[in-house]
């Protein structure tokens, strides 16, 4: 009971592991993959590839690098699918693999990709802080979305949050991961995950207090 009350509530998709267009849950598909069903993994690939690219671009900077890393993460997950425990969220397991690939990539390429002012720091931020604005299809779509009323807050998050903070924030609000699942995905303690979320929200609130409030949001408050 407590687990359901503490989970983030999605207005349009209460269960993030169920596709919005219907179909089998991720966990059921993963179980089929464990039994040898390639088609089920192709469906998981369709569901997660762009979400992985979106998550990874914040850590590796270039969208093309994020695409490569997403491919590596998906391949790794396919190869290791027998290690997945279907009692847990497939998304958390996949994000864990992806984040670890990004950390490895960041360690190997930090000097190469880090732009000025965003040099590696301690605590898992040894990667770039801002996604490159070189326009891949994802970046173009995001830029278009950011002109809308909902896009501003994530644009500001891109600008002011450290990669680890941004990753925790997106996993929690964008991927419906509980703080415990965020911690598991990022290979950090639960306390650390909560601290990251708190600091990310505080940083955003401080930044947003000087910006005009969206009247559509303000009406209900």
């Amino acid at each position, binding site marked *: 009971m407590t687990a359901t009350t503490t989970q983030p509530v999605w207005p*349009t998709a209460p269960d993030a592991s169920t596709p919005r267009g219907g179909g089998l849950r991720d966990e059921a598909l993963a179980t089929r993959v464990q039994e040898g069903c390639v088609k089920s993994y192709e469906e998981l690939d369709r569901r997660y590839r762009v*979400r992985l690219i979106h998550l990874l671009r914040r850590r590796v900077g270039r969208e093309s690098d994020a695409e490569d890393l997403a491919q590596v993460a998906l391949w790794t997950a*396919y*190869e290791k699918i027998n290690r997945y425990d279907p009692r847990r969220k497939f998304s958390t397991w996949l994000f864990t693999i992806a984040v670890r690939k990004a950390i490895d990539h960041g360690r190997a390429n930090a000097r190469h990709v880090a732009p000025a002012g965003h040099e590696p720091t301690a605590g898992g931020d040894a990667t770039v802080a801002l996604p490159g604005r070189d326009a891949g299809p994802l970046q173009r779509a995001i830029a278009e979305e950011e002109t809308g009323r909902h*896009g501003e807050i*994530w644009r500001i998050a891109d600008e002011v949050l450290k990669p680890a903070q941004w990753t925790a924030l997106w996993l929690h609000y964008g991927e419906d991961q509980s703080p415990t699942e965020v911690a598991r995905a990022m290979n950090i303690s639960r306390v650390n995950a909560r601290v990251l979320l708190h600091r990310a929200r505080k940083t*955003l609130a401080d930044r947003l*207090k000087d910006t005009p409030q969206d009247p559509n*949001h303000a009406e209900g408050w």
Partner: protein
Amino acid sequence: MKHHRTPKELETQLRDAASARRATLDRLAPSYPVGDYTPRASDAHARRTGPGVLTQAIWLLGLGGATTAGLLGLVTLIGLVMTPDPGRSSTTVAEIDPETSEKTTLPSVYTLAANLGQIEARMEQRLSPSVNLATAWPARLQDLPEAFLEADEELQKPFEIELTAIRADLETAARYLRQRWTAPPNPDPAGASIYPELSTLTG
């Protein structure tokens, strides 16, 4: 209009914005090609005969090796400490004795332990608890293999802790007895036992 958002307002705004971003991602998803995954034909075979069985075999071999090593260590230790040699001073006492000049005049721990009751009667008092603990070490050693096998992790730890405790007890007992030990005035030149009745122990 500028507005200082409350935490609840920020939470709502984050969720709404995340939902909008997810909708953007869902629209984009079909435009990305799916990876070319080949059937993992080796999986079933691997599950039957591969890593699972191999891991179990390695684990059992490792456990067996560790157990054997532990038992061999125990046997060696017991052999070193319990070797009855009444004609000479105890190797164990000598080893733990920093005063080498006394090595040849001390009774072995084995002898002392075997005659503890007699010693206490002569001294008309109970001996130090450390002596009692030291004389109980054979039973404590017998309990070691069980503790050793029960430990899933840090296999060496209970073994080392117990050995350290036994060694400390022996050292304390030896020190206690040595304080009350007086060398016989005229050792038997023929090499007979110098403490047949432990008459040289004083209270």
